[in-house]
């Protein structure tokens, strides 16, 4: 996993992704007034993404309380969003699910698309490890070769954290995302101690 310094999210801001109804939503609208944790998943049946969601889901309320939005983007069809939300019990969580079958957001975020990252030795180890933890893989729903990533974007568009995954099993530690968001919240305080 790479940590990339990126001063701006302008390339991402104008990209539109689909919500569960198929309506287009500009990604930039999610960080226009509040910080945003943007997590780009692989496809909706991905076992690595299931692990990532299991790590992140219990922390979504903390991110929300610290004043940030969380947006998850998958590469599958918008019609699959509801089933994904139900499968991962995200319905009552402060999170927005979007789809980007065009992969435009992934390209703008500089994420990896690679057969080796999906089928290579490291991916195989990640896959077996996830299976051993009780996660399951489902039918591919989206781009099989596209890898994920995560960004924390502040209101206005500067990126304060960007992680680029190089294997299907990689995901940012949810504590790193919470820490980034808490840091942003702390900086907003006039009485900062």
């Amino acid at each position, binding site marked *: 996993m790479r940590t990339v310094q990126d001063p701006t999210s302008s390339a991402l801001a104008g990209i539109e992704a689909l919500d569960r109804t198929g309506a287009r939503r500009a990604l930039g609208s999610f960080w226009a007034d509040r910080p945003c944790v943007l997590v780009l998943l692989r496809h909706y049946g991905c076992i690595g993404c299931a692990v990532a969601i299991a790590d992140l889901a219990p922390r979504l309320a903390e991110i929300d309380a610290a004043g940030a939005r969380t947006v998850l983007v998958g590469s599958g069809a918008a019609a699959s969003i509801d089933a994904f939300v139900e499968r991962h019990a995200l319905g009552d969580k402060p999170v927005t699910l979007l789809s980007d079958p065009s992969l435009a957001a992934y390209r703008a975020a500089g994420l990896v698309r690679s057969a080796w990252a999906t089928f290579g030795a490291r991916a195989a180890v990640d896959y077996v490890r996830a299976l051993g933890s009780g996660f399951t893989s489902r039918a591919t729903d989206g781009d099989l070769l596209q890898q994920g990533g995560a960004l924390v974007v502040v209101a206005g568009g500067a990126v304060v954290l960007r992680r680029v995954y190089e294997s299907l099993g990689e995901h940012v530690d949810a*504590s790193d995302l919470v820490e980034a968001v808490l840091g942003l919240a702390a*900086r907003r305080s006039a009485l900062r*101690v």
Partner: protein
Amino acid sequence: MAYLLHVANVLYLLSYLVKDILWLRLLTVVAGLLLMVWAYLQPEPLWASIAWNALFLVINVYQSWLLILERRPVRLSERDMKLYQLVFRALTPREYLKLLALGRWQDATAEARLVERGQALDRLMVLASGRAAVRVGERSIELHEGRFIGEMSFITGEAPSADVFALEGVRYVSWAKADLTKFLAQHPALRAAWQAVLGADLVSKLRATAT
């Protein structure tokens, strides 16, 4: 003496059936001991078998001891318990003890300056008793027992933008920032629970300063 061998193997069998790792190790220890006695009592003692089983025994006894240490009941003093109830209920008592062991109980008198504006803060504190005030010019908020001091600097790495004074005699726990950061990096589960505690405190302070 063959019965020693059979009893030892029955114990091994049982150890493979139990799910609890401590019981598995303890059964293995007893089985290994019996096996060593059996090997010694042979007309020609089986030293190789005794040596290997002695090695397994040492490893299993050591690991069992660690497990027992981890599982023994946690006893908190009245002072520690009060702070736990006030602030750290999201942590298990054992996690809390680990955290406390890293910090230091300290006292300060009324009007003592706990934090100086603009000066890098190398510690994080939590008030166990008494009141303190965060001040910048005319603006001020009061901190009561159970509130953190220095958490924003801890999270951002930046110098504080306000002073903090004790309004009366205060007692607090203080952690060296570097020690705490290193400790939390080594304990991911505790780091998550710690963030939840710190985050809740931070958010309530932000709400207080916004009103």
